[in-house]
């Protein structure tokens, strides 16, 4: 079957090269035959890559350990669930996954884009083919083909790294990849618009939908990654500002900026250059992220092992960056704004500041991530910055951004009047003030946490006010019940009110992040019957009592589990079972290092997080780390609400008349001005 896979790869590579040439030449020379050929090349490439994926999965399921990749990442006793996900567990397989998903997205984009955008499609096909061909070429020419065979056949494979044997790990990488990969589609549309000089409103609509999709996947992927790190890695947190984490955050930030500033372009015809630069930048950052995780240039706990694959990506990044921005610079005269900023107190201005803050955050994260390399280049010594740097810079910037999340929707387009401002700000400001008073009285003194809660309440105030006003207006106008009018409001104007739901999720995330300022932990060595107490930030006293250890064998591991009884203010509330796991192969021999499985009790207000650090040899004395993490539960639900809001915004059909009218008005204005 691996022969089939290799044939699939080569076929896909050749189709990719042809698609790139035919698409771009077909577009420039306006040759419909070549354009059609490029389109078919993308579909065929997609088919060839799916065959390659199928043959790799076939080898994985049939335990064909003669295939190096299969032997390296699976074993006979690996649960079937993880055998399936081993497709993207390693460098080589994930490259195949990348190329395949890109070709699927590319095919969908070509098939689904409406007819009036047909002029862009040859270029889109060309760009997608070129990028996919690059990924396939890394596999073929960078010694990274997942179909390479070994000179011998091992009896069993290495098995999958135990830390990856977690349900979160099955869904987190593909989600993140889907996010990374799908940015190529808006990028391809941006390049198509630049190449074809059709820089009107059509390409913008196509790009916005696809950017929203990548943004959604990336958001979900990042949240799942945080969840995986939290429940699996056992250090008691969910975000460590590791280079690989930062790499996924960077395009997310620039895409968030784009999704806001694109509204200014739609409504006012401003910021065209900025928006295109954001799309190109987001895509380059996604390739940069792929480069960082695969090159070993920046030491990260999560990166793939060092390999020459990194050079391919660096070269690609440089070439793609130069080509994109050269084309962009060449087309700048076509991207003049049609309007000017009229007032500082306007929606436009608040969106511009929001963009600057997002880019500022992205820049500081990029700077901090690259700082070891930069400082070595400039000073000759490597200087690293860690979480304290990122927190010090990003907490104030993030809070300023949170403030704008509330301010933006309250200010009118073009120019806001004073009475208008009074009407808009009264309720949200009061809500924010009251919330601050309540937490102050409750005894909270951490400055940033106070600001986060004050601003969070302010933003929630704006969201509720917007929903309430919209619903009331419908109630008056159509006589609908409030519940019905609320539902219709959301359904008829998904973009606006879905956006507010995203804002609600973001507020919840910020408040939950602020909760981590009150994290408390202690380490203790306990014999059965002994206990340790920890005071939670809410004033409860938690008592953890070790009840003893047990050892047993599970499917592919030997488990040492501790039983810890938890009492809150003297009342028993449950049992926690942190584990140490030693994974074994089919013959019972240990594979990998022992791994730690934290046990977590997730309560509404705080998480109790227990790690079994180790056992004193031959005794039942064990080392534990007990952590109380406030508000972690809210991180996961905040993320869920963000995703839900994103889905509502994206949901096809319906659409608001107002938005459509605004876009139509803009298009008319364009025609009128030409």
């Amino acid at each position, binding site marked *: 079957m691996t022969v089939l896979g290799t044939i699939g790869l080569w076929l896909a590579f050749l189709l990719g090269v042809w698609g790139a040439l035919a698409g771009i030449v077909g577009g420039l020379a306006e040759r419909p035959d070549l354009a059609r050929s490029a389109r078919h090349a993308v579909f065929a490439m997609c088919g060839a890559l799916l065959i390659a994926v199928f043959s790799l999965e076939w080898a994985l399921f049939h335990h064909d350990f003669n295939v190096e990749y299969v032997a390296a990442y699976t074993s006979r006793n690996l649960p079937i669930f993880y055998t399936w996900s081993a497709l993207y*567990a*390693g*460098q080589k397989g*994930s490259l195949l996954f990348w190329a395949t998903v890109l070709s699927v997205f590319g095919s969908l984009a070509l098939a689904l884009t409406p007819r009036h955008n047909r002029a862009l499609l040859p270029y889109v096909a060309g760009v997608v083919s070129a990028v996919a061909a690059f990924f396939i070429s890394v596999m073929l020419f960078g010694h990274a083909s997942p179909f390479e065979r070994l000179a011998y056949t091992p009896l069993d494979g290495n098995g999958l*790294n135990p*830390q*990856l044997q977690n349900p979160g790990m099955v869904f*987190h*990488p593909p989600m*993140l990849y889907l996010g990374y990969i799908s940015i190529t589609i808006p990028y391809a549309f941006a390049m198509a618009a630049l190449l074809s000089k059709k820089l009107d409103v059509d390409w913008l609509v196509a790009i916005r939908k696809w950017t929203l999709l990548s943004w959604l996947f990336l958001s979900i992927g*990042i949240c*799942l*990654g945080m969840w*995986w790190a939290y429940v699996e890695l*056992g250090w008691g947190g969910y*975000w460590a500002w590791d280079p*690989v*984490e930062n*790499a996924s955050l960077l395009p997310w930030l620039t895409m968030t900026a784009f999704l806001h500033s694109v509204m200014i372009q739609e409504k006012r015809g401003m910021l065209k250059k900025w928006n295109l630069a954001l799309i190109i930048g987001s895509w380059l950052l996604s390739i940069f992220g792929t480069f960082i*995780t695969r090159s070993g240039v920046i*030491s990260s*706990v*999560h*990166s*793939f092992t060092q390999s020459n694959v990194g050079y391919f990506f660096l070269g690609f990044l440089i070439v793609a960056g130069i080509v994109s921005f050269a084309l962009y610079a060449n087309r700048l005269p076509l991207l003049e704004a049609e309007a*000017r*900023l*009229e007032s*500082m107190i306007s929606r436009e*201005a608040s969106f511009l*500041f929001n963009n*600057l*803050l997002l880019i*500022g955050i992205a*820049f*500081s994260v990029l700077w*901090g991530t690259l*700082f070891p390399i930069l*400082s070595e280049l400039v000073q000759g*010594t*490597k*200087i*690293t*910055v*860690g979480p*304290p*740097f*990122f927190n*010090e*810079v990003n907490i*104030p*910037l993030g809070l300023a951004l949170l403030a704008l999340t509330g301010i933006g929707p309250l200010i009118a387009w073009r120019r806001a009047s004073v009475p208008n401002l009074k009407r808009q700000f009264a309720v949200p400001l009061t809500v924010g003030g009251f919330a601050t008073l309540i937490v102050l009285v409750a005894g909270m003194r951490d400055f940033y946490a106070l600001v986060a809660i004050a601003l969070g309440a302010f933003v929630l105030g704006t969201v509720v006010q917007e929903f309430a006003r919209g619903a009331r207006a419908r109630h008056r106008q159509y006589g609908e019940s409030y519940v019905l009018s609320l539902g219709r409001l959301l359904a008829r104007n998904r973009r606006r009110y879905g956006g507010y739901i995203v804002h609600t999720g973001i507020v919840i995330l910020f408040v939950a992040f602020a909760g981590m300022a009150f994290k408390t932990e202690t*380490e203790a*060595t306990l014999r059965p019957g002994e206990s340790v107490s920890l005071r939670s930030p809410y004033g409860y006293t938690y008592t953890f009592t070790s009840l003893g250890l047990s050892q047993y064998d599970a499917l592919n591991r030997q488990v040492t589990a501790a039983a810890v009884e938890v009492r809150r203010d003297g009342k028993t509330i449950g049992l926690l079972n942190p584990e140490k796991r030693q994974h074994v192969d089919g013959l019972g021999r240990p594979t990998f*290092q022992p791994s730690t499985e934290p046990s977590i009790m997730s309560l509404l207000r705080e998480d109790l997080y227990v790690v079994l*650090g*180790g056992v004193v040899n031959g005794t039942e*004395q064990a*080392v534990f*780390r007990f952590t109380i993490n406030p508000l972690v539960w809210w991180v996961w639900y905040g993320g869920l609400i963000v995703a839900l809001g994103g889905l509502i915004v994206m949901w096809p059909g319906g659409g608001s008349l107002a938005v459509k009218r605004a876009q139509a008005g803009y298009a008319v204005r364009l025609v009128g001005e030409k």
Partner: protein
Amino acid sequence: MNAGTKFAIGAGLIVASVGYLMASGVKETGQYFLTPTELTQKVALDPSFYNVGMRVGAHVVRGTVSKDVATQTLRFEVSDGSARYPVVFHGLPPDTFTDSVEVVVEGRLQKDGVIHATNVLAKCGSRYESVPKA
């Protein structure tokens, strides 16, 4: 003053504060990242280079790891082939820590010649290939 100028001032303020935060952040939290050899050179050049927060990247010397579970003390030596330093760490090391991995030790070199670590990060060995986390 027109809106454009006002906006430029606002934008300037944001850019300046981002710049300020970054510069002060680097100054206050930046740490040297050294190999044991570079650390030896630093100490030779500047005899007061003790008790300075830094990160040392090196590999663990095989057979030097001693672990006392009851007191949660971990002792080992790190080396880059030429220079060698003993390390002491109190706490739970990561799962991936063994006597054959590359580590990044965060801590301070004290007058006793021992690096007192506040954190030990283990990099994955050659067979260990991980999927990028978020």
